């Protein structure tokens, strides 16, 4: 398989195109890959027509005074501008968000209306931690594949410069009772019960509800469980920044659309890409497990503002409308992974290892068939732990019930344009960034199959196979 993989894949492009265009029922003879194509008989081909994102900025920087739906609007408008897609032809909008702005709880609808989409296009918001936009895309693919829609916009937004900080439960309870109190006396007696403790604010949960553990803490334990050293993590983080910088300098990050911040400059570049030196990185103290932990600010993804959007269509419709689709979105799989004994023993950032073999087996591909890998990088330690687990027979046998290991992706195909560590990680916007980036990489590198994988709090993971469309 290895030797076959290096063969040029262009030879059968024309044939393949014909196959896809006809929604072919019989796949051609496999030559280079385990499977010629992922097209399935009787199922509509779903394509990624375009994917865009706002520049990802560190929280508290240029976007600081905006709101989540502003960024989302930016991404949606950017998508329309780039594709010149007729707004009324959009059948549905699905948008992800994690930390919800309570004023715009269905941020999908608010942003869509603001971006000038038709008020007849329904929009819903989905939340699934860091794979929220992955789930938005999965929903979109399902809507198109089942024939309910022809064109769906999916995306996600995260705005970490402002988060909802609430009054305490006691205070809220008092304020609500105050609302119902009818007489002045009742009101005064309620106010009389006000104590200093009522005024302590409640921050949005930084830890998971079910395990009461913070993500960084979990990642540190995960790294320790797999014996991933601080040095390895710092090296991987540095790699991410160096590659991202290179991609930025070479102009490969074409998914970015400019964003005009009212009263400020036009933003057109990610601002968190900062290649450092190993020496500088080694000086940082552990951020979560002190003092012996290995996860630091430098080898973790940082709080980021940003939004992304993709246009997902049926292939027939896209071609009929004259678009050149970028990629087929084939098989998408979200896996729930919270078994074990209720406790923190199960590391949450771990699910790609579980989701990937499932998605591969379902599609009949092997790891060797994949030309481009795009993994979400929440923490360097978490990525490396996943890679180690995929290479471990012990893990496969004892934790996954498999006979043998899945195998880890080769680094020369892995996150070559940087990742969440360097580009930034606006939770719910990352999924679309990953898919668009893998499509762009397949095009640039001449590959056929791409694999996207991401993990999320709550022990969930997502994997998706992407197949390049013929040029």
């Amino acid at each position, binding site marked *: 398989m290895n030797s076959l993989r290096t063969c040029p894949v262009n030879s059968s492009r024309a044939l393949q195109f014909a196959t896809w265009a006809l929604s072919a029922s019989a796949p051609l003879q496999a030559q280079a890959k385990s499977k010629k194509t992922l097209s399935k008989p009787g199922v509509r081909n779903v394509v990624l027509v375009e994917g865009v994102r706002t520049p990802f900025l560190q929280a508290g920087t240029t976007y600081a005074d905006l709101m989540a739906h502003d960024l989302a609007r930016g991404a949606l408008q950017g998508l329309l501008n780039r594709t010149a897609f007729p707004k009324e032809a959009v059948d549905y909008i699905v948008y992800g968000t994690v930390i919800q702005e309570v004023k715009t709880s269905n941020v999908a609808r608010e942003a869509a209306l603001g971006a000038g989409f038709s008020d007849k296009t329904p929009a819903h918001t989905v939340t699934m931690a860091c794979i929220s936009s992955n789930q938005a895309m999965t929903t979109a693919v399902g809507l198109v594949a089942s024939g309910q829609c022809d064109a769906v916009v999916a995306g996600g937004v995260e705005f970490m410069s402002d988060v909802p900080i609430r009054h305490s439960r006691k205070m809220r309870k008092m304020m609500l009772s105050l609302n119902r109190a009818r007489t002045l006396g009742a009101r005064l007696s309620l106010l009389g019960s006000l104590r200093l403790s009522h005024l302590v604010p409640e921050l949005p949960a930084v830890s998971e509800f079910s395990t009461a553990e913070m993500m960084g803490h979990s990642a540190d334990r995960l790294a*320790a*469980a797999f014996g991933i050293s601080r040095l390895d993590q710092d090296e991987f983080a540095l790699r991410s920044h160096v590659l991202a910088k290179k991609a930025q300098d070479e102009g490969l990050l074409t998914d970015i659309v400019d964003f005009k911040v009212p009263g400020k400059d036009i933003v057109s570049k990610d601002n968190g890409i900062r290649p450092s030196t190993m020496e500088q990185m080694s000086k940082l103290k552990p951020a979560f497990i002190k003092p012996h932990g290995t996860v630091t600010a430098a080898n973790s993804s940082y709080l980021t503002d940003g939004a992304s959007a993709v246009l997902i269509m049926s292939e027939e419709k896209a071609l009929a409308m004259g678009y050149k689709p970028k990629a087929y979105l084939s098989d998408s799989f979200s896996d729930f992974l919270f078994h074990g004994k209720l406790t923190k023993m199960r590391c949450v950032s*771990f699910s790609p290892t579980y989701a990937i073999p499932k998605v591969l087996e379902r599609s009949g591909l092997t790891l060797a068939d994949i030309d481009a890998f795009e993994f979400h990088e929440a923490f360097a330690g978490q990525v490396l732990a996943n890679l*180690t687990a995929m290479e471990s027979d012990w*893990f496969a046998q004892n934790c996954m019930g498999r006979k043998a290991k899945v195998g880890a992706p080769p680094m020369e195909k892995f996150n070559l344009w940087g990742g969440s560590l360097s580009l930034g990680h606006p939770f719910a916007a990352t999924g679309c960034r990953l898919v668009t980036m893998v499509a762009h990489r397949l095009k640039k590198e001449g590959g056929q199959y791409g694999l996207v994988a991401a993990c999320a709090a709550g022990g969930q993971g997502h994997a998706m196979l992407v197949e390049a469309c013929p040029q």
Partner: protein
Amino acid sequence: LFYSCLRGSDRVPLFPSPARTHVNYEVKDNVAVIRINDPTSKVNTLTRQLQDDMMEVLNEVWGNSAVKSAVIISTKPGCFIAGANIDMIKVCKSAEEVSKLSKEGQMMFEKIEKSPIPFVAAVNGTCMGGGLEFAIACHYRVATKSKKTVMALPEVMLGLLPGAGGTQRMPKMLGLPTAFDVMLTGRSIRADKAKKMGLVHHVIDPLGPGVKDPEERLIEYLEEVAVGVAKGLAKKTVTVEKKKGLMQKVQDAVLGIPLVRNQVYKTVTQKVMKQTKGLYPAPLSIIEAVQAGVEKGPAEGYHVEAVNFGKLAMTPESRALIGLYQGQVACKKNNFGKPEREVKSLAVLGAGLMGAGIAQVTVDKGVATILKDTTTEGLARGHDQVYKGLNDKAKKKSITTFERDMTLSFLKGQLDYSGFEKVDMVIEAVFEDLSIKHKVLKEVEAVIPPHCIFASNTSALPIREIAAASKRPEKVIGMHYFSPVDKMQLLEIITTDKTSKDTTASAVAVGLKQGKVIIVVGDGPGFYTTRCLAPTLVEGIRILQEGVGPKKLDSLTTGFGFPVGVSTLIDEVGVDVAAHVAEDLGKAFGSRFGGGNVDVLKTMIQKGFKGRKSGKGCYVYSAKKKDKQVNSGTEEILKAFKLTAPPAVSGDEDVQYRLVSRFVNEAALCLQEGILADPVQGDIGAVFGLGFPPCLGGPFRFLDSFGADKLVQKMKRYEDAYGNQFTPCQLLLDYAKDPSKKFHK
């Protein structure tokens, strides 16, 4: 041998030392990593071999100038050191011998404390008794937050004291009040709590699965962290001193005043005396050793600790408590083999106090449980009881609210028999009435699968009579739980001659899963526990009739070592239940169960004095007042049934022995008749189920230490005054005749 080892460093060994089996070490970056693992046991204990190996290794480490610091770690999964080896103490014949053991331990730990290089104890798993004393002799402690990591000085529960420097180091480390609390209660301390108390310096979280066994990797990780600390200590980048909070500083300053300290000793002693009634010597010895060390200096402190340790080891109280500990371990095993099918789903009939309690301890272990009742009100009450039990745990932070919710999801409340076709075991906890039990049994047998076991939670009805209505008596068994089920450790399992071995194995397996200490007894009215309790209660009523007030009766029984007085016990059990049992067993056993008049109880029931549950019994219960008042209504009833006390057998001591001798005689009869398989189960059942004084170790241990002959003498006196309820049984007479005969070896 021990002393030669101590001086080993300046002595050329004449013979090459035999291979070390329990302790080894390697030097990593100038850190000596000393690993403990006893290959002969599942847990590490401080045995002679382990101590010798350790001393040898320590001397090599100290002799190696390249070593700048050391880590002590156990490679045994889930266990650092579980404590000193009890057998080592049990074989000693004199207090002096035990004192010598204590001194040896003290010296080894003192050498570590005074070591020229710093020692880091890396603790994962059980770290108790001598194990904890070892750890606190080290300069720095790192512990994992694994659920198995538990620190404690449980010696007091064995009637001993921490005899290897514990009474001396603990006060210095934790301050007097906390140190007393830890040593006098013997309570278990988890790692994060230990961190807060200042018992450990640093904690690490357990890891998930990686590329090898999680426990194995955790120990490796612990070692990595500990080696890092050890290096830091050697380089002085890590300090041993902890920053003290303001409260701590204030406390230290206050306790620096001798007068205040004296007050602390006094208060603690008073508290101990109040709780133990002076029946347990160990807590007082602990206070004495601590006081000696703090007030007169370490030399005197260590000396008193060692001497007291020796003395305590020779006390009958310590023998009794050690016997109970070992009996408890024995009663946590399934001697009936592995059941053919594991019970994965269970149904409980009746959502009353008992039923809901059984459901709670079952869902707590993740077993799907159906709780069935006949009314929605009953079901709601039962559900609330389970919720409250779990929520209390969450409030105490022993589980999270999330774990509470997930545990509760295993519980299914319903009014019908749907789903019973899939359950593996049914435990009925319906009203104690044979005809109702028969009705329920028939209904259940119509729906359950053939392999399903039917267990009856009854406190007195013979199982064979319940099983008489069954089509499959081999699947019928008794499981007698004690109230409150989530607190009481004992489960009495009753087998009939028809109960199959696999059914018994299954019931024991379920009980063990529920965390119970289990005795398996033969069938008969009242089985074992209720049968011992009934004559004691009847005697209690007699004593009340004779004019001893409920309060006095309570103080006499608690003064003998019972945790709950007889009058209070009647209220707790319920006057109606007590009457029911006394009458039933009275019919079954005749005049031996006579004495008090059951009509006293019946009159109380008529007046609504049903005990705590009705707010009135022997006492009046109100939610507000903590101090309960004697119920004047009951006093009047007692006056109406007044009997004259024969003066010869009515002194305080005689009253106590009248109660105890009837209990013990009935227990001996159970052994004689084969209801009990052995005295160990008899002791465990009496102590854990009925509160027989732990310091006496149970009825059989009591007979061994008190002397069967002495008890028989007393009983003969009572027999003369009262009649045949005090006639000693044949087994007692046999043991009285030959004082060399003992129930426990």
